[in-house]
């Protein structure tokens, strides 16, 4: 009955985690001797991790669900690696500009990444908690990395206080759930005490909603993104969101898998749906409406990422069908490229005045003419974020919305469409400043190679998905949609 405790398959499955965790440790240690080599070490670790991922087996379940390596987790780990690469590209030039190049930075980043890896490949509540903490604690430090900037410190403190708070709530939920069902493996849970179980799941979810910055658990996000160094803000907007939604997908598909799976539904579907619907509506509407009046572009992107989480929630509502894993995953791929690209542009344009980062939209005046490529790239990222074809963002929205319509969530889709039409306003406002305004004090533009590489990679992704949304007909490359669909087939 019980699978082997250890074996070559399990070892190969563990390899990606080991690589990243050991790599993180070594990179941090490197700080003692050759602190400038941090980037090189981190890139090497990620490269080895890619190899380890390629060699990983596709279906391993061990230790009461503490390690679950299936296609789903592999796809999400690949996405997380992508997000990490983008963050590395952005980090080095920013650190160099501010005179803060240190290997520990990269070590912390890798530790956080290893937490995310674990988060998307487990069904064990204890493991989820460990992963959440492993993900978060390095981020608390990284948020406060710009030590002279009191807003950076503020961001770290707020994230820390509220993050601990949400961890506590999660832990409480996990305890209740264990009490109700007698197991900590989500995949092995059967019925048990219904009320206790439901309370447990709700609190559990609140912990995740907090990490996903869903309204009303979102309030930390703008402050933290705004204060954190831009590459870290980008990492939180992409990687943390990807990991959290991966986890949410897994948990909710277990929670809702009533008939299809022996794991009994411990969340009453009928009862849970209104809550999820309200969260979806509030998250997209509050995110978009708040973004409207933002003059600080980084803050605007923070609210925008809240709004995108709202769209993603559409995919988490089962409606008359099941959780739309393919739609959510596809959207996350598109979201990764366009958001990383936009943050790369922001990072190239940010500057410190008196220790504080200045990123008001008027700094962007006339930039489109001074740097045609940067201007064009930002325009495309923003158009994609707004969901206009032929860009990645359009197809992401299309799949999510169509899936939701098919599951009978028409009202929600109408609200989502209204919201995305509204969002076009504040996205294009940045373009207006790029091309239509003049300024006496032109902003300094950082032409570092890292920014440019990130922009090119993001632009390639956005346009590639936009023009060939299913990456159709290319030898050797699986269809993106097919890849995404295959990945969620391993969910219940």
């Amino acid at each position: 009955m019980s699978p082997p405790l250890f074996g070559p398959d399990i070892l190969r499955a563990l390899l990606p985690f080991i690589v990243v965790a050991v790599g993180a440790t070594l990179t941090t240690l490197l700080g003692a001797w050759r602190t400038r080599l941090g980037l090189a070490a981190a890139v090497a670790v990620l490269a080895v991790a890619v190899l380890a991922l390629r060699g990983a087996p596709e279906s391993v379940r061990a230790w009461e669900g503490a390690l679950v390596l299936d296609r789903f987790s592999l796809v999400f780990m690949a996405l997380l690696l992508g997000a990490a690469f983008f963050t590395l590209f952005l980090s080095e030039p920013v650190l160099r500009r501010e005179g803060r190049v240190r290997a520990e930075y990269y070590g912390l980043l890798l530790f956080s990444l290893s937490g995310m890896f674990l988060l998307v490949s487990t069904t064990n509540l204890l493991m989820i908690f460990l992963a959440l903490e492993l993900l978060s604690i390095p981020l608390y430090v990284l948020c406060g990395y710009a030590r002279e900037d009191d807003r950076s410190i503020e961001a770290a403190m707020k994230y820390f206080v509220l993050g601990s708070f949400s961890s506590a709530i999660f832990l409480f939920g996990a305890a209740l759930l264990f009490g109700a069902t007698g197991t900590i493996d989500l995949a092995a849970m059967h019925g048990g005490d219904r009320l206790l179980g439901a309370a447990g799941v709700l609190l559990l979810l609140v912990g995740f909603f907090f990490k996903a910055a869903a309204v009303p658990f979102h309030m930390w996000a703008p402050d933290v993104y705004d204060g954190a160094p831009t590459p870290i803000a980008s990492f939180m907007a992409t990687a943390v969101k990807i990991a959290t939604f991966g986890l949410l997908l897994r948990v909710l598909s277990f929670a809702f898998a009533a008939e299809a799976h022996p794991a009994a539904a411990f969340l009453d579907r009928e009862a849970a749906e209104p809550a999820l619907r309200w969260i979806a509506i509030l998250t997209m509407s509050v995110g978009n409406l708040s973004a409207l009046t933002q003059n600080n572009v980084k803050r605007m992107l923070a609210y925008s990422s809240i709004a995108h989480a709202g769209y993603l929630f559409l995919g988490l509502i089962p409606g008359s069908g099941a959780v739309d894993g393919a739609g959510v995953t596809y959207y996350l791929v598109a979201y990764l490229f366009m958001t990383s690209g936009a943050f790369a542009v922001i990072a190239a344009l940010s500057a410190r005045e008196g220790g504080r980062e200045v990123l008001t939209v008027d700094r962007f005046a006339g930039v489109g003419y001074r740097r045609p490529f940067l201007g064009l790239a930002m325009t495309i990222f923003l158009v994609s974020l707004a969901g206009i074809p032929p860009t990645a963002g359009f197809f992401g929205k299309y799949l999510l919305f169509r899936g939701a319509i098919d599951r009978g969530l028409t009202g929600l889709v109408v609200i989502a469409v209204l919201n995305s039409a509204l969002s076009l306003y504040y996205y294009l406002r940045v373009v207006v400043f790029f091309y239509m305004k003049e300024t006496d004090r032109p902003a300094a533009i950082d032409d570092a190679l890292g920014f440019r590489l990130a922009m090119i990679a993001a632009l390639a992704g956005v346009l590639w998905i936009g023009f060939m949304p299913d990456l159709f007909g290319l030898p050797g490359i699986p269809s993106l949609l097919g890849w995404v669909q295959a990945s969620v087939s391993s969910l219940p």
Partner: protein
Amino acid sequence: MHESGAGIAETSLLRWIVLLPLLGAVWNGFLGKRIQRRFGERPIAAVGCLAVAASFLIALRAVLALPPGGAAVDRIYTWFGAGDLHVPFALLLDPLSSVMALVVTGVSALIHLYSIGYMRGDRGFYRYFSFLNLFVFAMLLLVLGDNILLLFVGWEGVGLCSYLLIGFWFADREKAAAGMKAFLVNRIGDLGFIVGILALWWSLAKHGLFSLDFRAMAEGIHLLQGDTILGVPALAFIGIALFVGAAGKSAQIPLYVWLPDAMAGPTPVSALIHAATMVTAGVYMIARMSFLYSLAPQALAVVAAIGAATALFAATIGFAQTDIKKVLAYSTVSQLGTMMLGVGVGAYAAGIFHLMTHAFFKACLFLSAGSVIHALGGEQDLRKMGGLRKKMPVTFLAMFLSTLAIAGIPGFSGFFSKDEILWNAYAGPHGHWALWLAGVLGAGMTAFYMFRLLFLAFFGTCRADEETMRHLHESPRVMTVPLIALAVLSVAGGWVGIPKALGGGNHFHYYLEPAVAAHEAHGSHALELVLIAVSVLLALSGIALAYHFYMKKPDLPARLTARARGLHRLVENKYYVDEIYGATAVRGVLILSRALRVFDDYVIDGIVNLTGWIARIVALISGWFDLVFVDGLVNALANGTIDLGRRARRLQTGAVQTYVLAVFGGILALIALYLGLGGRA
């Protein structure tokens, strides 16, 4: 789109029509700055003009190669295939898109040529040509796209280019508020358009039709008859939603307010984008979707009514404007209304016919105005012009001929297209005498204020100052040649559609017939001739009135305005529509957004205080518990926390408590919702 007889030919020529302007835009956009610095403006202009000219020639070849009544498709690749839906990236050349492609590339080529002279010496010469090419690319995608999704890509693309080109000289011209208004107005239009596309998409999918290309939709559209969306017949719902988009792009009531502001851009841009091509996209879209509109009489009635109202309303504003470009802008709004009236009464071919002739004469009018502005060193005020006829004979001639065309004088292009619309508005299947009356009155007013413009600018004595007078000159050849070409087209462009009542063959109508839903006006030739006579008489009296006011008795207008000051001020200020919008709609959205902030700042803080009070009582009760069990632990923790607390002084503003409170509120709400205490969202 009924494939009568000739089938669909496959071709790979069409992609080059679209691609060449894009290549030109990329070339000049990325290399232009360096090229301009080293080699001057010539190579920039050559690339920009040649790209569009070559695109025109290829389009011409492709159109001539079409079998009569047939169509050609260029399937580039499968853009998107998910599940049952397959959207090809394909371009379609049928009679309708042939007309559009030729008009767009032809007029663009002339305007590109003209721009060489107009933009000479501008620092951003390369930038300008790059954007202009990019615009042509997007516009061609709009008119050649084989499915509604590609049309939408072009639709957003032209919008973006239009902002970029308005903004070319934005900083020194207009206030930011005006730009913001234009922005919001177009968002409203686009929202309607998106809703329309999605509704169409899902309605068709419900019937198992998973295609978005126009021919397939035309064949399946009848399936939607009898469906309803939100209680409205599905076809009417979709038609009206799409029309909201068209109203935004084509400047119809109530979304027309952005177009006059767009005149802040360079004049050739106004000619190309805000007169000849982009603003007509809405009319084109309705003609393209004619298969849908023909089954949705309610939607058609809305289109026709709004079109007629716009034609009349904008014409009255044209009376009192003193800025030469603003007069032309309101006349564009009014003419677009006339086109909408045409397609709204089901006379799609007539609407497209007027779109074409309007492209000729309005481009000519704008370019002539540009020539005048250029010669006067940037002056746009009609009150400071006058007597330019002798100094600028070519410009005058072009302006004169195109004014005759817009006024609807028999023989000129505008006459044929406008009377085709008016005839259909009266006697067409969806016509009504009131629609005809509005249209014909608007036309009469157009004749009046256009001749007012002509008389004020070119006749009488010059009212410019000495300095400007001395520099007065005819524009260079590179600007006058396009003027002449467009003037010739303004005269002769209508001869392809001479109605049968006047002994012509109405060839244009029959050329377009395979591509748009059929329509035929019913009435005798005699009636048609009477209606034509009425409209010509009205136009002539408009001209006579303008002559009387502005040539014979130039002091009369001033006396009249003095007598009816209130009315005049109302018209001069465009009925204060801009101000009303600013005070209501624009502010409304901003208030909602700010309200969220205020909510954050005050309401939640209030709740914090309340709960603080409750918490204190709870704290008292549990105090003994702490004393006994927890104190030791707390003391140990506190020492470590003081240091952190000093750094985090900002946290004590209450913000973090607020956030935590929101989390608790959220949890309570979730539980309440879970227990079924809230309604279904």
